């Protein structure tokens, strides 16, 4: 046998946990792109809220990452 795959099953759980935040982050920035296309001068105002929302949504993925490392 050339290579043996070993590891923790919780990493697969992290992969699943990253799905939701992935969709959430995509929706946030899709809304920002839409808004910028409609009203370019409002970009900076939207960007602050978007980054903050992105940080909150991404928290779930980050918690998943931590739990994946805990065996």
């Amino acid at each position: 046998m050339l290579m043996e795959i070993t590891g923790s099953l919780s990493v697969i759980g992290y992969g699943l946990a990253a799905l939701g935040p992935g969709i959430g982050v995509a929706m946030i920035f899709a809304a920002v792109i839409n808004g910028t296309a409609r009203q370019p001068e409002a970009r900076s105002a939207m960007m602050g809220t978007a980054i903050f929302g992105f940080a909150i949504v991404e928290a779930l993925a980050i918690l998943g990452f931590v739990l994946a490392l805990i065996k």
Partner: protein
Amino acid sequence: MTSGWIPMDGGGFTPPSTEDFNFSGLMNGAAWLNKPMLQLVISVILIAVVFVWGSRNLQIVPGKRQWTFEFLYDYIRNTVGRDVIGRDYQKWMPLLFPMFLLIIVNNWFGEFFYFMFPTFSNIGYVYGLVILVFVLFIGVGIKAHGIAYFKLATAPADVPKLLWIIIIPLEILSTFVVRPVTLSVRLFANMFAGHMSVLVFIGGGTYLLTYANNILFNVSGGLSWVLGMAIIGLELFIGYLQAYVFTILTAQYIASSINVGH
């Protein structure tokens, strides 16, 4: 770290692990002086020297050098300071701009010759920064509102009293637990995972490329190196993005402590 990456050495492939992120001391009797610590010291000296040089004899009509440094400063001042903190943002710039520089330089060390290791993929270094931010935004809130800051931050006044049973624990959790945890783990996890994927592609590629008498393995090893270079390019972008997000969240937390309850 390099053992097991060349097939002729004998033995199978050892995938990169968290062991690759541990460094022993560079000098005898000084175990604390390891590679990440040295990188952090070098980055501070580098930033200080470059920016002292960049801000020498300033003129009203800027030259090329002054224009470049003003462009860098204006980028953080306008998008982080003015847009996020708003009024009285000037007094926070001495914190925000060096914080951005420190994080971006240390992240880019992961792609830089001689260093090739992002300092903040060791979580202890991130904890240092986050403790500073955590103490700072609570301190700013107490300075602006006195001890009532904790009440304003955890019990919004315009919510029905009955809902406070749910809101107060949630707000305590989100402000004083989730904020510092996510702020530290976000930077750490991005740097750690990025460096790990570079190790997988370059290390695994080396193993396949040097495998004897198997042309398919050698070709796929070469392809893996090409993809590894692309990932290094992606890492440069992520290093910038995480530095920017960390700075903008610091500004956001400070702003939310000043304007708490609004």
